[in-house]
């Protein structure tokens, strides 16, 4: 470790900045990264953020990470250029990931970092920020803006730009809070001066593209649902799904829609079903424990042929597990939960862009096929924030499936809610339509909706329901797989959601090392796409990267015909997000490299 005596560093130009800010829950680490994200986004960089918090409101280790890069990134990198820590443990946790010339901004109110803790090359910017905040502003909370001032100086961002960003971000808080924050910022600038940061230690490349939008996967998905005509949402608070409810409660009413907090997940899914019966495009969202509770409702939607979108923002299980941590361990539950055999679709977005597109597609699919459609998210995919090009709002298509108008019903001699059709999908009416009255039920039924156990009818009805998926697959209606990297490579990798970003980045690094890899990103996981199975079976080796301990995804592919001998599992299930090196490592070593 070196302490800084003089501004003897010349700023390194970087176009990929990885930063973490950590402290106790309530220390305001997230705000530091939010302000920086605003600034760097305006500089035209792509911004990506992650949170790492405990399931408690105040206290306990809490961190927010930020990546700002010229190329679009969907995950944190492996190395950290900037570390901001309000506590020593934050520094300790970051050490394994420090870049060779990392800047460490440390709140020394409770004492200095132990000598020798930081590796050589790292630059320590220590100041008693908490003490300054209490001394000058009366509340320790403002230390986060002092840190912000130090960091922005270290990154060579002009002070006025930073003040501007604060004003925009804290507008709603009003005076005097905004004023205190600005004062704290100045304290930070002062501290940076004392620490002789000079013109800055890093120089972050600016690019263009300020039209970009910045949002989380949860927001993108909810927005996709909205533009697809989604007008009804019910949920029950649960991390990390709550944001969807929040977002829709804000926006849906402005479109004549309804977003409602139900008394529990059973009510949530059954309210959504009730709404769907009236012809409203309807969605519910939850995470693992809530999804477990919803299983009877999903089976009901499958049996009764009721269109419904169900979002599962997966988190670490089993049971309550680690509620704030990412995982992909409800894949089995989505594909195989519910009692009895019924068709369902499970789609899995990777990027924030995917979340939007798949939000639209899922909403369409549910109604086209009168079927429950799961959107498989994970805590990272949900809550990490990215900067992307604005969505195309001009080519949104809505497909209401076989919804009958009054004229069509009138033209029919006889209307059967569950009419047997060659594509498995029966025309439907909604209440308000004359002569279209129907009986919808979760029992087995004749085409007219009356309950029966007639064995012949049963066979026909089961086959009819099963045909829906065949139709969806044959017609190319399901979100398609995407092939990234070297299509011809003998080595393949597969992963969804939180594995998407790390895999994309791993691809680049492997390419740089001369290892060609093809990345097959399935965006539908049930029914298992044929091309996924073919991808596996046509390569020499395929690494299936997933955030769970049981290889749920890989086993799903094996069940549907993938050759187990080709598959190598890359499993992460310790609550940490996947990192590019989790993928680079095993592939490189398979190729005989370290």
């Amino acid at each position, binding site marked *: 470790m070196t302490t800084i005596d003089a501004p003897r560093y010349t700023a390194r130009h970087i176009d990929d900045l990885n930063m973490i800010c950590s402290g106790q829950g309530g220390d305001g680490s997230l705000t530091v990264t939010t302000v920086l994200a605003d600034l760097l986004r305006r500089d035209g960089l792509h911004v990506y953020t992650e949170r790492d918090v405990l399931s408690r409101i105040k206290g306990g280790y809490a961190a927010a990470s930020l990546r700002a890069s010229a190329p679009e990134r969907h995950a944190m990198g492996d190395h950290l250029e900037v570390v901001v820590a309000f506590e020593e443990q934050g520094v300790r946790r970051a050490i394994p990931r420090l870049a060779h010339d990392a800047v460490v901004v440390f709140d020394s109110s409770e004492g200095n970092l132990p000598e020798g803790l930081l590796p050589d090359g790292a630059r320590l910017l220590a100041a008693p920020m908490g003490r300054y905040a209490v001394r000058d502003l009366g509340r320790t909370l403002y230390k986060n803006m002092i840190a912000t001032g130090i960091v922005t100086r270290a990154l060579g961002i002009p002070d006025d730009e930073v003040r501007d960003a604060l004003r925009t971000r804290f507008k709603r808080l009003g005076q005097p809070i905004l004023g205190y924050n600005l004062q704290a910022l100045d304290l930070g600038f002062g501290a940076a001066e004392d620490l002789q940061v000079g013109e800055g230690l890093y120089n972050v490349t600016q690019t263009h593209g300020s039209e970009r*939008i*910045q*949002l989380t996967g949860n*927001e993108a998905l909810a*927005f996709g649902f*909205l*533009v697809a*005509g989604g007008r*009804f949402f019910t949920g029950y608070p649960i991390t990390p799904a709550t944001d969807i409810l929040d977002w829709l409660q804000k*926006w849906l009413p*402005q*479109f*004549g*829609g*309804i977003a*409602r907090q139900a*008394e529990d997940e*059973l*009510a949530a899914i*059954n*309210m*959504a*079903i*009730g*709404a*769907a*019966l*009236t*012809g*409203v*495009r*309807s969605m519910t969202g939850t995470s693992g424990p809530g999804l477990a509770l919803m299983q009877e*409702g999903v089976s009901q939607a499958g049996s009764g042929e009721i269109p419904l979108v169900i979002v599962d923002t997966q988190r670490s299980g089993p049971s309550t597990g680690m509620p704030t941590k990412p995982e992909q361990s409800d894949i089995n539950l989505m594909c195989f939960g519910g009692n009895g055999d019924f068709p369902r679709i499970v789609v899995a977005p990777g990027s924030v862009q995917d979340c939007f597109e798949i939000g639209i597609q899922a909403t369409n699919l549910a109604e086209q096929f009168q079927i429950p459609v799961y959107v498989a998210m994970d805590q990272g995919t949900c809550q990490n924030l990215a900067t992307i090009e*604005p*969505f195309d*709002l*001009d080519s*949104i298509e*809505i497909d209401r499936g076989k919804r009958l108008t009054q004229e069509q019903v009138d033209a029919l001699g*006889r*209307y*059967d*809610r569950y009419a047997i059709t060659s594509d498995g999908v029966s025309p439907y009416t*909604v*209440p*308000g*339509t*004359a*002569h*279209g*009255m*129907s*009986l*919808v*039920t*979760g*029992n087995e039924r004749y085409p*007219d*909706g009356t*309950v029966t156990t007639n064995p012949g009818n049963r066979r026909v009805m089961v086959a009819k329901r099963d045909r829906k998926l065949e139709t969806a697959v044959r017609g190319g209606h399901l979100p398609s797989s995407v092939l990234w990297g070297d299509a011809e490579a003998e080595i393949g990798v597969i992963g969804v959601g939180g594995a998407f970003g790390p895999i994309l980045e791993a691809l680049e690094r492997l390419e740089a090392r001369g290892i060609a890899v093809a990345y097959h990103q399935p965006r539908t996981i049930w029914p298992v796409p044929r091309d996924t199975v073919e991808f596996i079976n046509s390569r020499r080796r395929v690494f299936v990267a997933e955030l769970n301990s049981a290889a749920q995804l890989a086993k799903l592919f094996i069940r549907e015909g993938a050759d187990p001998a080709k598959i190598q599992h890359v499993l992460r299930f310790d609550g940490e997000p996947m990192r590019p090196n989790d993928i680079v490592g095993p592939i490189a070593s398979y190729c005989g490299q370290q």
Partner: protein
Amino acid sequence: MTTLTTEPHVTQTFPIKDTIWCAGCGHFSVLNALDGSFGRLGIDGKDALVVAGIGCSGTIQNHVPAYGYHALHGRALPSAAGAKMANPELTVIAAGGDGDGLAIGGGHLMHTFRNNPSIAYIIMNNSTYGLTKGQASPTSQGGFRGFAAREQVDPVMLGLSIPATTFLARSYSGDGDQLEQLTDAAIRHANAGRGFAFLEVISPCVAYNDRYHEWPAHLVDVARTPGYDPRDRAGVFTQLLSWDEEGRVPTGLLFLNEDAPLADAAGPAQQDVDPASNREAYRKVLASFQA
């Protein structure tokens, strides 16, 4: 009991004759009253949705000239509330048994009282699980004993305990006239946007808990009780408790709160989902992500 009078005149798509009920089951009367209410209230069945739970009672929707939904066991209320929220122009009627509505569905009942959606709900209380062959329900005393402290849970008392409650009534399958009146009143209350209209019908199960011969002596019609004021919540509670101690079970419109503000009647949620006509508004949303 009564027999069905409805003809399959409204939709040709499902038969409305063949019920699964035992001859004499109390549920026939409920069906008869409900079925007739469409005509009496001038409700076009195409604008109505009847949501039923699972149980013998949970098949009533098959025989009513309206859209019908056979919900999950215990979930008639959230299903019905969801439908009503999504399309407030519909007449939404929920119905089911005492097991369905008070055991597995008990939590939803409490929350429906408090959320007060404008739906009518008819609980067909036979103090037993008919369809699963006679187990005790939350309204049965051990061994289906008595009338005094007749109920382990009295949904009317429960309703009284929740501030938002607006309409509580009870009737009896053996009293077709009162049942018709109260069914109509409940649907009218809901359709006027006054909130959740709760109607319990004592509807004996002749197979597992046949008490037709015992009930009449225990019922007391509040409409014939001088001084009974259904608007006085505390008074109603006190009166019901004291009747309960005497082994008497009140029927009629037991509680009514007309002072509560009307529920919003926003239009149906599904209107106007065309991307083209919403494009500008969607752009506003998009812009919120640029801030």
